[in-house]
Structures are given as structure tokens and as C-alpha cells.
């Protein structure tokens, strides 16, 4: 926020151009534009995100922020901290735990909530499986099972606004999402009947039982998130950086061997080996794939993300591959 340098957002520019990308440096910076006071891109995105978060706190009774320890929710929480400084973040955080999460991410989640003095609510899919309210799916994927615990937590705590770290660049159904997304008492999204969203006048009015999903990072891309993480020196779970891990092949993805994901077929077992990998998203361990990478630091990751030819979800999310409209269908049911 303090920088009004027009040529760069980041104190340290990404180290070198990525392999395979254009070697020439960015020509003609925006200083050529008339007018001296223009927000550089990351500053504009940060300012917009803070504005959105403050609007929600001002207009809703009981907001909550979905926090998984994944990079998007970490950046969103960082914006929330900035929005109310020097005061504390004025709402709790909620994690829907599938029971198949990476242990290091859960540790990061707990440490972050404690460091910031936040109340952490956990909605546990495992509890629902244990008492029979939900049943394990044949494919073992637990992501779709998150919807019911999420909706129960929202209604149980009477949360009326739920911040999510979803970005429109992630997926084609998300590209259609408003910043303020009204959900009915079943948490359903109706893409054909969304409220028009005009200027920065967000309409959060809702009837009892309804709630609003709010996406402060709507206009951010994966690369924006990483450049912001670099600029703000935000710490992430180590999974996001290259490390050696035992993996096997499934459906063209690299799955980690762990307590919740093991080879199911002979072919999968035959593919077992140790690779140098990192994660682009850190969801449920049983359906989130790793990518081969030597990016050990944030600048390496930026170079890698800038050069990749595969989208974040395409590379790492098995559940999005279920059908052409898997995300849209889940969102209609109340998922994010």
C-alpha cells in the first residue's frame, strides 16, 4: 500500500525469467501513462479486497472466514488483518476438515489462528462419517462431502456472511461468480438468477436463513496470489515448496502416499517412487495431486507459475475432472 512506484509492485523482482519464456525484460513500464498517481496492479487488488472485507464487517451481523491453511485463504486472512489494523480481525475463522488433510497444513492452520488470536471453528467430515450422517463415496474422494458440514456450521452458528478465497480464474463456473453471492437456506447458488453487481456498491441484503458468500480475491489470479505472497513475505505451509515425497500415478496425477491415499491397483503400485514435488493447491490429500518441481523458494514458484501451461485445478484436482460441469454442480448444491 505504501508503494506508489509505478514500475513494480514487488520489492524484489522475480529471479530471472522462467525457462522457456521470453528472455526479454518487460518493456515500456506503465510510467508512460499520463497522470502520476496510478495504483499498480497488486496495490489495486489489495485495496479492492480490503474494501470488500470492511463492507462485510460493517453490514453483516455474524461474518466468518473460511480458512484452510491453503494459500488463497492465507492471503485472504492477511487482507483481513490489514483491513482492521491496528485492531484485531473482528470475526472467527472456520475450517471444514475432510479428515484427509495434510498434517502440516493443519498445524499451520492452528498456529496461525493462535498467533492472530482468532477463534477457530472446525466442521469435521469425519464426525459425519462416524455417526452415519454421511457415507464414504466409492471413489474415496471427500471434497464433495464437505457441503453438508459447511452448511450445518453456517446455520448452527447463524453465520450470515462467509468469506471464501475462491478466485474467478480458477475454473469456468467460478468465472461466473459475483463478489457477493447470495445463497438460499440450502446454500444453493443459482447462476441464472444472480443479482447484478454494480460499481463497488455491494448488496448484502438477505432474508432470514439466507446467507451471502463473499469472495474478496475474485479478481486475483494464481500468479497475483504468489506475487503478493512474495511481496508481503507471507509464510505458507512447506508443502507449497519443492520437497521429496513418495508418490504414485493416478489419472495422470501424482498422488502422495499417505494415511489416506495409497495405490489401489497393481498399476498404481508399480508406479510408486520418490519424486521432487510441490503442491499448487492443498486440499484433501486423497484427491489433490502434486506437481514435479524444483521451486524451493517463493521466487522460484513465481517463475514456475508464470511459465506453466496447465491451470492450477487442471493439474491438481481430481474432483474437477468428474464431469464438464463438476464445479458448477457442486456450487449449486452449496459448495464453494
Amino acid at each position, binding site marked *: *500500500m*505504501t508503494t506508489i512506484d509505478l514500475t513494480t*509492485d514487488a520489492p524484489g523482482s522475480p529471479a530471472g*525469467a*522462467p525457462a*522457456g*519464456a521470453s528472455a526479454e525484460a*518487460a518493456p*515500456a513500464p*506503465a510510467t508512460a*501513462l*499520463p497522470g502520476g*498517481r496510478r*495504483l*499498480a496492479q497488486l496495490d*489495486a*487488488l*489489495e*485495496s*479492492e479486497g480490503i*474494501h470488500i472485507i470492511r*463492507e462485510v*464487517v*460493517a453490514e453483516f451481523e455474524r461474518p466468518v472466514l473460511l480458512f484452510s491453511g491453503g494459500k488463497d485463504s492465507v492471503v485472504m486472512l492477511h487482507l483481513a488483518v*490489514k483491513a*482492521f*489494523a*491496528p*485492531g*484485531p480481525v473482528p470475526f472467527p475463522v472456520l475450517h471444514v476438515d475432510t479428515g484427509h488433510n495434510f498434517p502440516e497444513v493443519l498445524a499451520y492452520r492452528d498456529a496461525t489462528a493462535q498467533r492472530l488470536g482468532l477463534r477457530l471453528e472446525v466442521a469435521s467430515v469425519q464426525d459425519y462419517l462416524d455417526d452415519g450422517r454421511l457415507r464414504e463415496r466409492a471413489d474415496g474422494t471427500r471434497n464433495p462431502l464437505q457441503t453438508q458440514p459447511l452448511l450445518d456450521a453456517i446455520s448452527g452458528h447463524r453465520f450470515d456472511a462467509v468469506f471464501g478465497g475462491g478466485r*474467478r*480464474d480458477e475454473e*469456468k*463456473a467460478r*468465472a461466473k461468480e459475483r463478489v457477493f453471492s*447470495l445463497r438460499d437456506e440450502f446454500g444453493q447458488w443459482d447462476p*441464472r438468477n444472480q*443479482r*447484478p453487481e*454494480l*460499481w*463497488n*456498491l455491494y*448488496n448484502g*441484503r438477505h*432474508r432470514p436463513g439466507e446467507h451471502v458468500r463473499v469472495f474478496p480475491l*475474485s479478481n486475483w489470479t494464481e500468479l*497475483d496470489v504468489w506475487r503478493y505472497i512474495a511481496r508481503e513475505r507471507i509464510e505458507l505451509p512447506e508443502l507449497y515448496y519443492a520437497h521429496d515425497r513418495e508418490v504414485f*500415478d493416478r*489419472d495422470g496425477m501424482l498422488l502422495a502416499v499417505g494415511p489416506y491415499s495409497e495405490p489401489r491397483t497393481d498399476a498404481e503400485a508399480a508406479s510408486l517412487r520418490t519424486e521432487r514435488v510441490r503442491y499448487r493447491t492443498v486440499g484433501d490429500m486423497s484427491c489433490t495431486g502434486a506437481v*514435479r518441481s524444483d521451486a524451493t523458494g517463493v521466487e522460484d514458484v513465481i517463475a514456475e507459475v*508464470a*511459465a*506453466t*501451461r496447465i*491451470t492450477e485445478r*487442471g493439474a491438481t484436482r481430481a474432483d474437477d475432472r468428474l464431469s*464438464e*460441469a463438476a464445479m*458448477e454442480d457442486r456450487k449449486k448444491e452449496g459448495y464453494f
Partner: protein
Amino acid sequence: MGTQTSTVAEGATLPLDDARRGTLLRLATAGSVDDGKSTLVGRLLFDSKSVLADQLDAVERVSRDRGLETADLALLTDGLRAEREQGITIDVAYRYFATARRSFILADCPGHVQYTRNTVTGASTADVVVLLIDARKGLLEQTRRHLAVASLLRVPHVVVAVNKIDLVDYSEARYEELAADIRAAATSLGVGDVHTIPVSALVGDNVVDRASVNTPWYDGPSLLELLEELPTGDDPEAEAFRFPVQVVIRPQAAAEERYRDYRGYAGQVASGVVTVGDEVVVLPSGRRTTVVGIDTADSLASGEELTEAFAPQSVTIRLADDVDVARGDLIASAAEAPEVTQDVEGTVAWLSDRPLLPGARVLLKHTTRTVQAVVRDVVGRLDLDTAELEPAERLDLNDIGRVTLRLASPVAAEEYVVARRTGAFLLVDGQDGGTLAAGMVGDALAAARRPASRPGSYAI
């Protein structure tokens, strides 16, 4: 990355490498059904290397399943089940791409007349509207409607892409004829800054690369080059300072002792520049005071105090006097303070299925303030062909008209033609909370009847 079956050449020149660092330009597309809007957007994304291999794979797979010989680039943007089934765009989709010079947020808006409200949605935040016309068909009623929406919402720049130029044999005469039609329509509707470009979204002429061999007579920039050049937003230095208060920050339970008496007003600068020491007025109360501090989380953490803030920065402002300031108040430059009023005449784009009738009770949302309002009168409905008001007793879905409103308490409403942020409002249904109308204070087409010379207007 598992099985990577990329159809894009490895090592393709990526404009993303060290870039995404210039300014952010927000654009909205508009056009009629079947004029190739989704194809143009797909072409922009594809030729600027913003489509990744798995997205393209998916498009190629679906295209093949439908028996198409080449990938249908429109499938890149039509994301909903119903859109893909019907082959039309229903709702606004937001797309992101970048070149070495700047980043773009693209609101891909549906062209069908029943979704005009989505065009209004996309245009309300746009720096540029990219309007497509079919070179064979010329200007349609929808073209005029979209030009009118761009003009009403004071979108700073309009770029008209004269598409399917390949289907009129790349005729310079036809292009010049259409360009003249566009200029005439734009002038009558008061569009500030209009550019025309002959393109073929299907073939790619003048979309990303300049100087298509097919149009040797055109020596202007390609669409992408033009989008890289256009200035963003309004110039803060040319505007008066306006700051709607979002939240009062008063952390009595702050972790640090020195902040226990802290009192700041958090918000996003709506327009202009504020400097520490400036005299300001708090509206609607009218109390005058002085800015003694401007904070952000970063400035508080570093101890380096800020001396100024400008639109659209999110900051927290501290004032010299302990005046009563709450959410919904507007802190404004004392030297150029707006008037406050309970009577607003405004131009509205009616977005609801139910008609607007005089006597209706609604909520008016203006900056961070929401007040009750009664519709006193429907003054008239806009005839988009003549840009004149015709008498009307009600407004129906997609009508643009003029209304007078009486408010339960005053707001600092300014003419939209001079103040885009503090001149905008929503009308909201108090019962179900639905958004009824996009409103602009004053005669939003006033500029059309004035000699055109808008500040910030810019020509290549």
C-alpha cells in the same frame, strides 16, 4: 504434471514472465447475439497466450464431440451448463489475461437483450467497453443500446470492433462507412472517447497483431495494442477528494498499549487526493476538521507515516477533532464540498421484472449509506434512437429512464457525469433485498447535449 498433452508449442513466448506489473485495466465486452463476441474474447485470450493447455484440451475435446473441425474458442468463456447447451452467453464471466505491459480484467457480457442488466453490471466497473458489430449488418438497435449504456455509465473509453471484416472482403469502403455511422451514433449519445478497429475474430486480423496483411489500408493499432495504451480510470488529480466512511476503527482491546486510544475512519478513497493537513468536511453533519493522519497496516507497522492518499486506495484517516463520524458519512474536501440533499433526480437502468411505479418505497444505497426512499415521479423513459426522454408513467425491465426520489435522510449525492463514485446509487427492494436499479444522479446523458470535452479523454 502427469500426462501433459500440450497442443501449444513448448517454449512459446509467454508475455506473463516478468510482467503483470503495470496497471490494471478493466474492460467489458458488449454486442449482439452471434456477432462473434465470445470468439473475439477467445481469440484475445488465445493469441495473447493466456489459454492454458488443459483448458484448450477441454475445448478441443468438446468441439470434436460436437463434430467441429477446429476448436470453438467461444467454449473458453461459456462456462455454465446451460450456456454450453444453448451456445449462448447467459451471465457475465470474468477473464484474466496479461501482456508485458499490463494486466486485464475482462467482463464478458451477454449480448441478448433480456440480459441487458448484465451489460450494465459489466460496464459499471469498466475502463473500456469493447463493442462488437458485424461488418455485414452494421449498427443495430442493440449497438445503440450498448453505446447508450456505455455513455450513461460514463465508461471512459469505447472501442468498437468492426468484426467479420473478412466476410465483406476486407473492404475499406465498408469499414469507413461503418466507422462514420459509429462516430455519428457516439456523438449523439455523448460517448466520450471512441475508437474503431476492423477485425476478424475468427481469422485473427488486428486482434493481437498489428497491420494485418488483409487490411493494408488500416494503419491504426491492433485491439490489444490499443487496450495496452488506454489510460485507466479517472485521474485522481483532476477530481475533488471524497471518502465514504466504511468502518470506525477503535481497537480498545488492541494488543499494543499505544493503540488503545486510536480512532480512525477506514474506507476507500472514492475520488481525488487527500494530504495530511487538509481541511475536510464531514457530511451530512457539515462539521469541519483537519486530517492529521493517514494510516495503512503497512505504515503503522513500519512507523513511516503517510502524507497522502489517492483514489482508489483503502486507508484509514485520523481527524484533528473528536467529531461524530460514523459509517455512511462522507469525508470531503472542505474547499470543494458537495451539497447534501433529500431530493434526488436520477437516471436509472431498471433491472427488475416488476415495473417501477410512482409511490414505490425502496432503499437507496449510495456510497456506504443506505436510506429509505420513495419514488415521487417517473419523469420519462429514454428513447435510445434520439437520446431524448419520452413521457412515461412507469419503467419496465431494461428501460432506462428518469425518476425523482424523496429520501428519508440526506445524502451527499453528486452529478454522476462529474463524479462516477459519489454519483452512483442502487435501488434495493426492502423486502427481499433484490437489486432493482442502477442509478446515476442527475441527467446522466447531459454530456450528450454539451460540446464534447471530457477531462481525461484520450486519443491515440
